[in-house]
């Protein structure tokens, strides 16, 4: 009797496993039939098609405009977009693992720059060539390098050139009779004055893993004024990153600021998303980010309109404007079952009316990298930028920097918590460059 029961149970288990298999094929054939029926309909809507869109937390505008546009696309085409959002600190690693294991999303939001794109997602192997898409010719040529490999375009980008600055609360500065600092010593004095008044001078956020790296890499526009052909020499391995003395200086300055309490007591537990509230409530006086952040803050906190000033971060006495033409861009997975639908979504986003909706709806965007689109850039900021020399950020000009961005972030965390020195952080940046170059069999490192 027991043997009969045992045999029945085993048979049930095997049947349920096989039933699971047959259910998928039935659904596929049903979907195929439905697709066939739908292609013959007038509105050409595709049902039962869901595209997965993988992205990191800060990769999409917090206003939800992309999701709104996706809903509009769904209403028009019947294709659903399923946004799968991952914390910033885990995104790059997770995407790489998913691509290598063949389980990546239909569409991916990737930090795209010309030096790191291949190492990050290897577009030639993993992504769909979009060069023949109509909208490519409408994009600003300056951004195409970041989303192309061997002259083929693989992605679609929306953000225009970004400039990184320190935002300051004009009311706090006015109350404390402070001028914007132009040297490190002035910066220190400003921070001390603000700290003495009971306000946290700078809102720093290390939880996302990337924010603490900005001072080191975004000040590249200053490094290139100190060394001739710096980026070229670093890429040809004719100079070591440790030879750029200003990087060491900046790391020491950041450590000093942390030790002096200019980032507050809780910065190691803070995330970038909390900066707007802290800034608007007057709990923190300054914050480092790109100019789109001011628009976001003013939208969420209208009382801050006209009260957010900017200055370039005077780390190591820097007085240059850092420019970054690259940003996150969307790519289509070559192994996706719905490539045409994904292309359709990109074409939908690229329509002029939708680009304007995106610009108006994305509070963090001040301009787009598309021809014939308007701009939300603050005229006060534009005049300020014109008064200073500009240069490209280090992570776009120097190889093997962006791929180790999150590792640098962890090392800076270690520096702040006292388990690493600034010199060790710089040593590690150099070591990881050598390691990545060796892995890529870079001829300049042989």
């Amino acid at each position, binding site marked *: 009797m027991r043997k009969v029961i045992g045999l029945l149970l085993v048979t049930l288990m095997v049947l349920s496993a096989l039933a699971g298999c047959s259910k998928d094929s039935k659904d596929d054939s049903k979907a195929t039939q439905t697709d066939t029926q739908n292609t013959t309909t007038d509105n050409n809507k595709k049902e039962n098609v869901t595209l997965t869109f993988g992205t990191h937390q800060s990769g999409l505008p917090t206003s939800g405009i992309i999701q709104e546009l996706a809903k509009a696309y769904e209403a028009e085409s019947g294709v659903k977009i399923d946004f799968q959002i991952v914390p910033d*600190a885990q995104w790059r*690693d997770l995407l790489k693992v998913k691509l290598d294991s063949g389980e990546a999303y239909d569409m991916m939001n990737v930090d795209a720059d010309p030096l790191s794109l291949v190492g990050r997602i290897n577009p030639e192997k993993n992504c769909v060539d979009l060069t023949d898409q109509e909208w490519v010719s409408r994009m600003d040529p300056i951004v195409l390098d970041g989303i192309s490999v061997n002259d083929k375009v693989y992605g679609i980008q929306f953000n225009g050139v970004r400039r990184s600055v320190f935002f300051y609360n004009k009311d706090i500065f006015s109350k404390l009779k402070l001028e914007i600092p132009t040297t490190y010593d002035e910066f220190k004095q400003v921070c001390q004055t603000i700290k003495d008044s009971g306000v946290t001078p700078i809102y720093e956020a290390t939880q996302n893993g990337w924010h603490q790296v900005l001072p080191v890499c975004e000040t590249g526009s200053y490094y290139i004024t100190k060394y001739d052909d710096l980026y070229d020499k670093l890429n040809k391995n004719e100079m070591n990153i440790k030879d750029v003395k200003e990087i060491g200086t900046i790391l020491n300055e950041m450590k000093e600021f942390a030790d002096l309490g200019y980032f507050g007591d809780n910065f190691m537990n803070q995330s970038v998303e909390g900066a707007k509230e802290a800034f608007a409530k007057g709990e923190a006086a300054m914050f480092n980010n790109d100019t789109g952040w001011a628009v976001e803050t003013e939208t969420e906190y209208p009382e801050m309109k006209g009260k957010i000033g900017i200055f370039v971060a005077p780390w190591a006495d820097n007085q240059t404007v850092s420019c970054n033409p690259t940003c996150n861009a969307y790519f289509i997975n070559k192994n996706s079952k719905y490539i045409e639908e994904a292309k359709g979504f990109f074409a939908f986003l690229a329509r002029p009316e939708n680009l304007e909706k995106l610009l108006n709806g994305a509070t963090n965007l001040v301009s787009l990298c598309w021809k014939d689109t308007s701009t939300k850039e603050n005229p006060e900021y534009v005049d300020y930028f014109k008064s200073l020399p500009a240069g490209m950020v280090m992570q776009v000009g120097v190889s093997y920097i962006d791929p180790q961005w999150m*590792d640098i972030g962890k090392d800076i*965390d*270690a520096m702040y*918590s006292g388990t690493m020195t600034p010199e060790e952080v710089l040593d590690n940046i150099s070591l990881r460059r050598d*390691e990545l170059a060796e892995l890529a069999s870079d001829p300049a490192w042989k």
Partner: protein
Amino acid sequence: MNKKKTYPTYYSYAALALFIIFFFLPGIMGIFYSFTNWNSLSSDVNFVGFKNYEKIFSGRYDFIRYIWNTLKFTGLTMLTKTVFGIIFAILLTHKLVMCRNLQRMAIFIPQVMSFLIVGLVFKSLLNPVTGFLNNFLKTIGLDFLAKNWLSDAHLALNTVITVDTWKGVGYLMIIIIAGINAISSTYYEAAQIDGANFLQKTWYITLPLLKPVILNVTILNLTYGLRVFDIIYALTNGGPGHVTEVINTSVYSEFSKGNYAMGTTLSGILFIFVMMISYVILRALEPKEEL
């Protein structure tokens, strides 16, 4: 022996085949790849000898610290979970304790919670400014005990160990309760007659007879601790800095960088550790045969 009731060896062949194909062979292949420069940035796979192992043990990188963190995590969680598991099991099998089943359930429930949920909840609870723990301590006048639990380099690993113990002790408690319930009551009756108190019964009867169960839970703790990843990833992602990085978070990091050879090298080292330490513990806790 009743031959009719003994299962023949070939019954295990299918399971053995699955184990060899999906676990053993990949492990051996991984060890082979650890002697190469296999990575995602180049299609060539070249033999590089012990280069990867040299990198790990040279001290130039942080891998030694990750191995040490793994061993520390394993040792401390083994100790805390076993000790607390035994204490809870003994208390919750004592007839004088009320609502035993309810308490067992309350202690066991964290075990069935997802690591991600536990990580997110504790990150919130342990926030130094807004978290429940520090605010509670300040409310009852114990401000000096309020710390940066997850962002202080000296405390972070111990905090992770504490959270992991809270999550895992229930599982061990259940196993030990099963072991206690299997002990014949005649031993306790005899001890009672001899005038033994609760502690003496526990020390001279319960613990010695629980030795096989303690051996099993030690092995479970060991294999879990050496392979830990989820709780670290969810709570600290190896931070602050690298103070809570362990071997498996490092393997994940190397794989995601595309440095597969280094990832398999670290996994190979972990495999050797698990084998060595398991063997030592099994031999140490084995009952010695009388001659």
